[in-house]
């Protein structure tokens, strides 16, 4: 009896410690967004004033162009990525191509390269094109980086679309493109939503390429956050606010997408 109580105590203690390690920094950041720089560092900590939005409003007023940059690049690359990946995945699944397995593996292999290996060549390429310090360069780079992943994930979802549906559409006079657009896309919406969520989060949080390819005006939010660590001073309050803002869109996006991830979309299509 005593033994099991001690066991439980240790177990709960450990669980509590692990939870604290993961939750406390988040809480510190969220609370920090409602405190001043000095307030964040005082011991014992002072309570945040959740009614006081002045620092947050001030931050948004000053840094909204960078929030917009982040949104533009992320949403843009997510859309481009899906538009490009969908036909590619459909083709790889449905057409018998010479060396299709090689193509599929090769596409994935580009994902294995560390991004830093691509960062400098990309900088040189975009510099040559006069596109450094533009949102477009980042949009293109993110689309390219996410494409292999998106193709692979979409391929697994497209494989689940019953073959007869595609054949029925073809027999009814639909071209391959119409079959993709009117049948495969609606039927694999859940897969598209899943893929979009991952692509969105990757692009939204990406830091390295953004650091290389953006300039003063075209910076994205992660780059801006890093700039708050100065040589003389660290702007803790700004970091906290920016981090809070940074974490909101993926949460909203995931929530919205979750509603579209309807399981059993193909129910009733074919006899199971």
């Amino acid at each position, binding site marked *: 009896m005593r033994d099991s109580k001690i066991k439980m105590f240790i177990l709960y203690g450990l669980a509590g410690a692990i939870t604290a390690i993961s939750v406390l920094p988040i809480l510190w950041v969220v609370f920090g967004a409602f405190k001043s720089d000095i307030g964040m560092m005082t011991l014992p900590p002072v309570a945040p004033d959740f009614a006081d939005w002045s620092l947050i409003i001030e931050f948004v007023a000053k840094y909204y162009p960078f929030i917009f940059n982040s949104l533009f690049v992320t949403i843009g690359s997510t859309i481009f990525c899906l538009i490009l990946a969908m036909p590619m995945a459909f083709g790889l699944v449905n057409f018998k191509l010479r060396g299709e397995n090689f193509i599929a593996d090769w596409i994935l292999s580009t994902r294995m390269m560390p991004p830093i290996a691509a960062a400098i060549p990309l900088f040189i390429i975009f510099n040559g094109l006069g596109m450094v310090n533009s949102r477009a360069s980042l949009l293109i780079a993110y689309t390219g980086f996410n494409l292999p992943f998106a193709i692979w994930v979409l391929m697994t979802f497209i494989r689940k679309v019953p073959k*007869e549906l595609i054949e029925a559409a*073809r027999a009814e006079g639909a071209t391959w493109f119409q079959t993709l657009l009117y049948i495969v896309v609606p*039927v694999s919406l859940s897969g598209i939503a899943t893929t979009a969520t991952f692509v969105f989060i990757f692009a939204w949080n990406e830091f390295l390429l953004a650091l290389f390819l953006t300039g003063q005006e075209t910076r994205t939010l992660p780059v801006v956050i890093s700039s708050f660590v100065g040589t003389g001073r660290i702007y803790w309050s700004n970091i906290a606010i920016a981090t809070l803002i940074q974490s909101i869109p993926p949460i909203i996006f995931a929530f919205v997408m979750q509603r579209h991830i309807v399981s059993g979309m193909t*129910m009733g299509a*074919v006899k199971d």
Partner: protein
Amino acid sequence: MAKISLNKVEKTFGSIDVIKGIDLEIKDGEFLVFVGPSGCGKSTLLRLICGLEEVTKGEIIVDEQNVTDLPPSERQLAMVFQSYALYPHMTVRKNIGFGLRIAGFDKKTVEKKVLEAAKMLEIEDLLERRPRDLSGGQRQRVAIGRAIVRSPKAFLFDEPLSNLDAALRVQMRKEIINLHESIKTTMIYVTHDQVEAMTMADRIVVLKDGEIMQVDGPTDLYRNPKNVFVASFIGSPTMNLIPTAGADNSLLLNNAISLPYGHLQQEKIQQAATFGIRPEHLDISSKGGIWEAKVLMLEEHGSEEFYQVEIEGLSQPLEVRSNSSKIYRKGDTFWLSPQVEQSFIFDAEGNTIS
């Protein structure tokens, strides 16, 4: 409406020859059934006609037009799948109208044609429903509706009824026959169910291992099979087949029993390798006959009985069909007399001699 011709059509998957050179003329307005055991290539042949598979060799002509290299979208044929293949994200109305919308018909025309098709199949009340809210029979009707609405040159059915329960299958069978009579469009129908084949077809194509065994009307196929495969495939219960040798005006069945066979020329009898007789051509009598038979198994069907009987000297049991008032039980004996004029003999290659 269309005439369809297959000229030396071949299909190989890798190194496997699935279709081995098929020549076939399908008449305009005909109801043609492909039948055969699984793996005989009947579905593949249908998919080749539809364009879902590419022909390896040979050509397919629809209405004087060579469609061999055309995609399915340009062949103007309609296919009904075994699995229905309804679009799950569309209502019944949208499902039926999909082909028309793709073809660029205006909204009013699509709406009108969809309604016509729905009325024909009595599914007007289901138009706003999704496939998942329909029963199997209703789904099959929608699938047929989707085919009708486009007024195709020909309908291709790939085992459309095999997912339905028995009663519904009989009903849908009749409806498809009626549909064919009212629209008179060429229909090609694939099935492994010989009852479906016999009851629906104008002509039946019996396939085996990618080759045509025989093309004939249902009754001709039953009465005059060209070879031992067709003879055994068509008919239920199947024809009794006994290895035999020819002798003087008689057959020596199983090298053991002699059966007088005087109605044929001697040279034909000499070639006999297999003796075939249908279960209904074995007469039962309690008084006397040629063979004494002992009942091994009885299957009662109400209107008739099927017996499996053992005859001394024969290595295999025989199937006998009877509709006499007397029912024999397991272990009972009776006399059997084969109607030799109705029987068949096949040569060593399996071709019918008589």
